[in-house]
């Protein structure tokens, strides 16, 4: 009789109380484990007399870094060296992402092409590249570079102004001129204008149904504005051609073999995955959508822009973002071929200072920032494009 009364259930049979007890047990266990590891670490650190903390940031690094976006020398501090590494990671990821998107989209469309040859080749490429570890691909491209290409003295020059040698690729760039700064500014202004016009055009289309040729307008502005700036400065045509001085090229722009190998490896590997994402996205739009659009008299370009793409992008964007994140994470393999990315610089720092915990924590923190901001963007995007169901 007593057992049927609500208050008299023994506390170990009450699901709510049991859940609380279980959670306390889990917390205690995890806490004990963490405590055990930390206390061991503290004892070990004391024994090896390693001082923890980030005070090594201000010490002189005394190692050289092959390539850097900001001024750096062996006399700079460890903090600056790490910033150089982070910038190098960003550089290779940024350039890699842009080219990967282009190549991956082309491959994805080629995979769906009605041309048998093209579609077969694309699918072979996708399958092969996905099945070979990225690290192996990096080693392979790096080896190709320094084994196949000659020394700078006998550099190959397939077209004038471009030199291939085992020290890297040197190519001609326009000589520095004050106009370039303003052209960059014009490009930025152009992009902002296009963005605003696009928003306005979308609103107008929703209200009146009239379509503004945003794409053509955008291309005209983005290319046109810098071009006008360039002409306004008297169209400077002077070129900076690389020349062989001593054992290496001077002038022009030189890309190191490490940079090219990591870039090539990341692009060719990730593009295969992007191609699959693009293919799945396009295939996810049902045939009926295209047929319906055709039957109301839309022409091919508006069909793609107004019907197919908005629906395909909803499917494509989330996995695409995670591929971009993968590319960024894989850029950490640069350490294996000696491109000075963040992991590589942090590794050198660990070896020199012995601050292993801080070093690994920094690596993890940097990549966590990347991935958390990416997933924040994803959440925002998903909310924005989520289907409004009636």
């Amino acid at each position, binding site marked *: 009789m007593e057992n049927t009364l609500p208050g008299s259930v023994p506390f170990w049979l009450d699901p709510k109380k049991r*859940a609380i007890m*279980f*959670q306390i047990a*889990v*917390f205690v266990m*995890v806490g004990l484990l963490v405590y055990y*590891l930390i206390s*061991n*670490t503290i*004892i*070990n*650190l004391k*024994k090896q007399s390693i001082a923890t903390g980030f005070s090594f940031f201000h010490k002189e690094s005394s190692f050289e870094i092959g390539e850097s976006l900001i001024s750096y020398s062996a006399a700079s501090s460890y903090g600056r060296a790490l910033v150089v590494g982070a910038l190098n990671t960003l550089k290779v990821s940024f350039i890699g992402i842009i080219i990967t998107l282009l190549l991956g989209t082309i491959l994805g469309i080629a995979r769906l*092409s*009605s*041309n*048998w*040859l*093209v579609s077969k*080749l694309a699918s072979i490429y996708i*399958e*092969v590249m*996905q*099945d*070979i*570890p*990225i*690290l*192996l691909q990096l*080693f*392979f491209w790096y*080896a*190709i570079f320094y*084994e196949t290409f000659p020394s700078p003295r006998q550099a190959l020059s397939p077209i004038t102004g471009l030199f291939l040698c085992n020290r890297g690729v040197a190519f001609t760039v326009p000589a520095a001129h004050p106009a370039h700064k303003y052209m960059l500014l014009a490009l930025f202004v152009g992009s902002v204008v296009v963005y605003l016009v696009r928003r306005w055009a979308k609103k107008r289309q929703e209200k009146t149904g009239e379509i503004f040729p945003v794409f053509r307008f955008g291309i005209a502005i983005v290319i046109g504005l810098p071009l006008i700036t360039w002409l306004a400065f008297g169209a400077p045509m002077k070129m900076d051609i690389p020349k062989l001085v001593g054992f290496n090229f001077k002038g022009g722009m030189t890309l190191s073999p490490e940079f090219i190998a990591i870039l090539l490896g990341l692009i060719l590997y990730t593009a295969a995955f992007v191609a699959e994402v693009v293919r799945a996205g396009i295939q996810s739009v049902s045939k009926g959508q295209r047929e319906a659009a055709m039957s109301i008299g839309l022409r091919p370009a508006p069909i793609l822009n107004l019907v197919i793409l908005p629906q395909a992008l909803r499917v494509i964007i989330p996995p695409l973002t995670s591929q971009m994140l993968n590319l960024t*994470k*894989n850029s*950490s*393999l640069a*350490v*294996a071929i000696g491109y000075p990315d963040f*992991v590589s610089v942090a*590794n050198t720092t*660990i070896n020199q200072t012995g601050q*292993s*915990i801080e*070093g*690994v924590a920094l*690596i*993890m923190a940097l*990549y*966590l920032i*990347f*991935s*958390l901001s990416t997933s924040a963007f994803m959440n925002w995007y998903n909310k924005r494009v989520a289907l409004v169901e009636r």
Partner: protein
Amino acid sequence: MEEAIKMTETEALKPPVTSVGVIGWAKNNLFNGWFNSILTIVTLYLLWKIIPPLFQWAFIDSVWHTTGKACRGIDGACWSIIPTNMRFIIFGFFPYEQQWRPLLAMFLLFGLLFYSRDRNHWKKPLGYAWIVGLFTMGLLMKGGLFGLIPVESTQWGGLPLTLLLSVFGLTAAYPLGVILALGRQSKMRGVKWICVLYIELIRGVPLISLLFMSAIIFPLFLPEGITINKILRAQVAIILFTASYIAEVVRGGLQGMSRGQYEAAESMGLNYYQTMRLVILPQALKIVIPPTVSILISAFKDTSLVVIIALWDLMKTTQSVLSDPEWMGFSREAYIFIAILYFLGCFSMSNYSRKLEKELSAGEQQ
């Protein structure tokens, strides 16, 4: 054409030669429209430029059984690097006379994998066979029992190490991943947040940072006097990493279960443990077999990263052959060889996954 018309007074009209057979096929698949025609011609031209020289390099001008010196003068590929150093690339520093043991272990593994391919074999005995098999493989590698000479794990290397890291990595990561996924779906806030924190933390960082951690920080975690060998530490890092990815895949499966399943189990009076073991997990894990296989594939590829913390896996043994002065400069041949090994492994797995996906989706419709 005209002849065909004459003949067809009694028979059905045959389609014109241009729309059937090779010509018809080519017309429909390669030359439909001006754009595709140009594309085909350009592609064929590029293939013509690339394939014959590559073929010449790989097969006609190549040598297969020479010394490194004899390779220096030739234009083609020097495949001699592979047969000459085959045993070192595959087995690393495993004692030369004992190399039949890892070979046997690998055959055992392939045999088990091959047998497990068929879904009709997925019964309890297979599970026991795997346990016995894995134990035997460990015994063959380690030795020390039944008159086998003990071999220190520092001498393990090459392909067996790569397989060991991926197979044991996945077997240990799988249960951990399932527990994490259940924890993440749990109604208990505290448990849920611990699991979410773990999964998101690990998924947010590259594997290489965990491997660094295992190589340099992990020894600091342990009390003095206790050391764990390098391979096991790397293995732990791979397990922790793979588990978080498996957890996300399994969570997908759990979310795919309808509420009715939980309610039905509850109304039968099953408790949480019984509900999960008997009703939810068998169905949820079945749905996620294909994505689990793709995780297996990436885990297999990712084991190559241990080369960065200087374990002697397949990649490292190859690189060490390449640093031998006799074979320096033949990286292309050596890397192509191990690329083929990796490709065969991954391709057969992804093929299998596709086959399984088809079978499973056919089962759903019945």
